[in-house]
């Protein structure tokens, strides 16, 4: 059964590391739901959060292969762990008119989202939160007309008291 897996990769900051990772997934025909990565507090180390929809067995195999990359320091599948703070960030552009503007602003308030730009016809707003919150926000905006949005994809950090940094 295919289900969502969120995988955190800690890798060396080397040229081509993303190509190695995506190549490995492509060879096995995996689709990447989302991927986000950036340098960490150690400029030699890069952290990537990957979201894949695959079977448990396929994920087990691919995490082993990812681990095998020489530049990989660590791979964890956090899907079944609850000691992680997982966040996503979104910027979304919604259509508004005289009648709907106040409703949309009210929702933005409720979600503690932040308007970035407002015009006669559109509102652009940003929001961060867990994935469910982001999904729900998009859903609620849909009836007004969502022109487009960009999502960051998930990224995560361990809670305190967790040796699995």
């Amino acid at each position, binding site marked *: 059964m295919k289900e969502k897996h969120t995988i955190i990769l800690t*890798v*060396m900051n080397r*040229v*081509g590391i993303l*190509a*190695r990772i995506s*190549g*490995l997934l492509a*060879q096995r025909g995996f689709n990447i739901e989302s991927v986000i990565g950036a340098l960490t507090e150690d400029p030699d180390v890069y952290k990537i959060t990957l979201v894949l929809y695959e079977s448990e067995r396929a994920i*087990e*195999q691919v995490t*082993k*292969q990812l*681990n*095998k*990359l*020489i*530049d*990989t*320091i660590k791979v964890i599948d956090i899907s079944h762990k609850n000691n992680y703070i997982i966040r996503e960030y979104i910027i979304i552009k919604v259509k508004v008119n005289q009648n709907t503007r106040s409703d949309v602003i009210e929702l933005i308030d409720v979600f503690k989202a932040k308007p970035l730009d407002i015009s006669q016809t559109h509102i652009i707003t940003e929001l961060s939160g867990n994935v469910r919150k982001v999904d729900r926000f998009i859903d609620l905006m849909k009836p007004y007309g969502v022109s487009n949005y960009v999502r960051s994809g998930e990224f995560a950090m361990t809670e305190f008291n967790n040796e699995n940094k």
Partner: protein
Amino acid sequence: MKGSKILLESLLKENVDTIFGYPGGSVIPIFDEFYNTNKIKFLLTRHEQGAAHAADGYARVTQKVGVCIVTSGPGATNTITGIANAKLDSIPIVVISGQVPSGNLGTDAFQETDMVGLTRSISKHNYLIKEVENIPKIIKEAFYIAKNGRPGPVTVDIPVDLMMQEVKNVKYPTKVELPGFKPNIKGNPKQVDKLVNAISEAKKPLLYIGGGVIISKAEKELVELIKKTNIPTVSTMMGLGSLPYDSENYLGMPGMHGVVSANYAIAECDLLIAVGVRFDDRITGPRDTFAKNSVVAHIDIDPAEIGKNIFADIPIVGDAKSVLKELNEKVKNRKKDDWNKKTEKWKNENPLKYDQKNSKKILPQFVINKVNEFVTDDTIIATDVGQHQMWSAQFYHHQKPNRYLTSGGLGTMGYGLPAAMGASFGFPKKQVILFSGDGSIQMNIQELATLALNNINVKIIILNNSFLGMVRQWQDLFWNKNYSATCLRRNSECKAQCKGPENDDDCPNLYIPDFVKVAEANGVKGLRTDKVEEVEKILKEGLEYDGPVLMEFLVEKEENVYPMVPAGKMNNQILLGD
């Protein structure tokens, strides 16, 4: 110091004394460096694929890292098959390729190909060097990665301008720092204990060993384990030679063309102890049918192999030698029992066979068997790919590890001649024999000239059946004898459809090429026969000759390799031939 000199010094620091390769615009500075040193034995092959396979053959017999140097673009792409071949057989080679000048990277410059992109999925690791100062560090890492853990090919791409740059203070690192690469050598003792228990509880234990035993030099530990426990043993093709072929408790090779006893034993065992193997599909057949009745213990240094193809009840990540050593200390002695008797009975009742007595034509198996009379246990055998490869796995008397060079994982036709050449270049005093087919030999036949000019003493045996025999065999057995695109003598006179020369009196049967003439044109001694009674004489003359020889045996055209487990069938559904 110049970049090219730094590269040479870095290679010398890795104890490199032999290099295979081919020059071109972007590596002239490197070759210029070789011009001024006598510390490197360099072999100019006639094709970059030859250089890559030669480095592979060299690595297999010397157990050192094989090195090859080629130019950018077509030189680099010509090594691709050699790199993939080394990856699938876990052979440590370092391929250094020139690259266009740094400033031209990514501009489709003359002879630019993206070597790191091309080799990403077929190398163990790869590098593009961007700063001349990094040459020593990267060369050190490349060699370290190639030979440690599960070995494999590493490629290093170097823009030509770096070779000419000067550096003042060159620093050579003394150790590598690779936080992400720490192979686990020692097996988890708890897991080893579990295996010890499993062995004492098992009624029908079976050892299934492979190339990992040879790579980790674990043959002594293996022999000791078998002596102590009398566990019947089967070996993959990559493992051949880790046990002498006539060892007690040894059944032979399982799989598609494996012996009956080995396949039956896998089907019936209740504990399968896999050591340094990867459960290749040519061994397992359909995975859900493989070793159905068995608990599986899997010892391998590569964690990604464990559970990849077959679920492991007792996974042990570690080096085969280290784990077997620990196992030997803990395991209880086991006496031969009914299970041993049963496997021996299978073995005795189902020997490999061929019937030369009732054939007027030379049978390929007969030639290989005869070769056994002319070798020592130190003889190195190389093969190409096809029926002759399977027959040499079956009928050659494998005695020692690192003496059987064959393309197991990739099945690369054209591997044999350059690999044999690399092996002989590494060990000039040892006898090196190549078994090839009339198809395979033509895929790197240009290296005959390299043999002759450098007096590389390889004895080539071509078993000429006029067909791409292994493919023809599948057509014969499973495709209604439609010999489509497998006859190497097919020519413009032939009928559109052909079911083979046996059924066709008008078969033009053109003998092209004349391999003996090809050999002689290249300065290699050539011998040929199609007569059974001359086989021994030709072998004697060829094998005793001082220098490279090509011996061609015109053999029975439609002989098939048996036993055969057809693709997709279970291991005990075996075709035995007549």
